[in-house]
């Protein structure tokens, strides 16, 4: 099991999940707010639509194409 911090809150999970999959384990799978403030969650699942962009260890990354690592810090783009 590994621990990932989502907006500062620890989440414990098995290995091999993408950050997008990890979002579904939290209370809300929202990844970001759109430019008009609408909530958005992973949509295309394969790195095309950019809806799932979040900040991972200080860098903007796509949640659907990043694997969770022990101690990783993920912040939603809100």
């Amino acid at each position, binding site marked *: 099991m590994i621990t990932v911090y989502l907006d500062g809150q620890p989440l414990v999970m098995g290995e091999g999940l993408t950050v997008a999959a990890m979002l*579904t384990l939290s209370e809300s799978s929202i990844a970001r707010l759109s*430019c008009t403030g609408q909530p958005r969650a992973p949509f295309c699942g394969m790195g*095309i639509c950019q809806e799932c962009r979040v900040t991972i260890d200080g*860098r903007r990354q796509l949640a659907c194409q990043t694997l969770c690592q022990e101690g990783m810090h993920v912040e939603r783009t809100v």
Partner: protein
Amino acid sequence: MKNHKTLSCDIAIVGAGPAGLAAARAASVSQRSIAVIDDNPLPGGQIWRDGPQVSQLAMAKDYRRVLSLPTVRYLPGTRIVASLAAGALLLEDAQTSYRLDYEQLILCCGAQELLLPFPGWTLPGVTGAGALQALIKSGASVAGERVLIAGSGPLLLASAATARAAGALVSGVYEQTDRYQLINFGVGLLRWPGKLAQAFKLFSTRYRWRSHVIEAMGDRRLEAVRIRQGDAEAVIACDRLACGFGLVPNTVLAQHLGCSLEDNAVAVDRYQQTSQTGIYAAGECTGVGGSELALVEGEVAGLAATGKVEQAQALFTHRAYWQRFARHVKEHFGLRPEIRRLARVDTLICRCEDVALSVLAEEQGWNAAKLQSRCGMGACQGRICGSIARELFGWSLPEPRVPLVPARIETLMACSEKDMS
């Protein structure tokens, strides 16, 4: 500059799905140096996607072995930012940027889902059909959730099977094409017995034809979906809607490299060479046809790129067999006209810049649309709304612009102005 490296190879292959792996395997026999670039963290593309909830096929594992050969450099989690002058690509992964020099290039960029707009399609809980499958394979939890699958094409049944196996309650699979087309499709599958067996295995008693989504409803997340089934309408409460209208070839990189398109796919000759000498293409980016076609096309491309012309020719009959299958699928899942009219005036078309249909309906084409509304100018660079505008308004795809994907400033700074010209 730190965190910037220069790499070189004889053959660069873009994509580590079936086509890319087959191309790498065929080309590796020549002992030439190969680089395989893939934006996913794990190999396999979409159909052989690996993850915590996947038991990988033996064939997929076998093809993946090519990536550990000493002549093959595998670059996972790596995106192509731009083509630089004269046989070089600018790449970046999560830490590093690269200049990759190549002699020959094989594009195996795959396909993306055709994601058409309907009211509520931006709500969290709504995804593509293949997208739901990808998310589940990547470890997303859907156990006990009420899931609807909708759209068009064989992928809907595959997605439903994946969701069910992960413990979701799939209450309906809604296919827009009609019964006549589906029966003809099924009968025609007798020519591809393996596919017929697959269809039987995936078939669901929840499968409905001539039915489609009208709207997704909910306050800040999906709560219910309004479905039209034949001439009747129903509102069905659910937690997830997975809706995709088939697949479209990924052509952005090929367009950027100056390769000609034909029928919205990368145009290739019988050796899988594009209109640009030394640039080959294989798999779904040359036309959607499934993994069997992608494998044989990849193999032809890998052989042709390494001068093994006769061995490539020996595969043409097998390739034609799967090309006929691709045409068979395409002929029976054509979109009904009402699918292109699901969006209302206030439905967003561009999800990046939140541009509604009413704004775009007044414009004549991409240039005007971009100037007036920023449609297609957000993070996805028109990859989603480009296909939508083609389907809804008949606009051709927007010209790709550099950087092809969001990139770090330090990556852009690593190449000189001369490189980018």
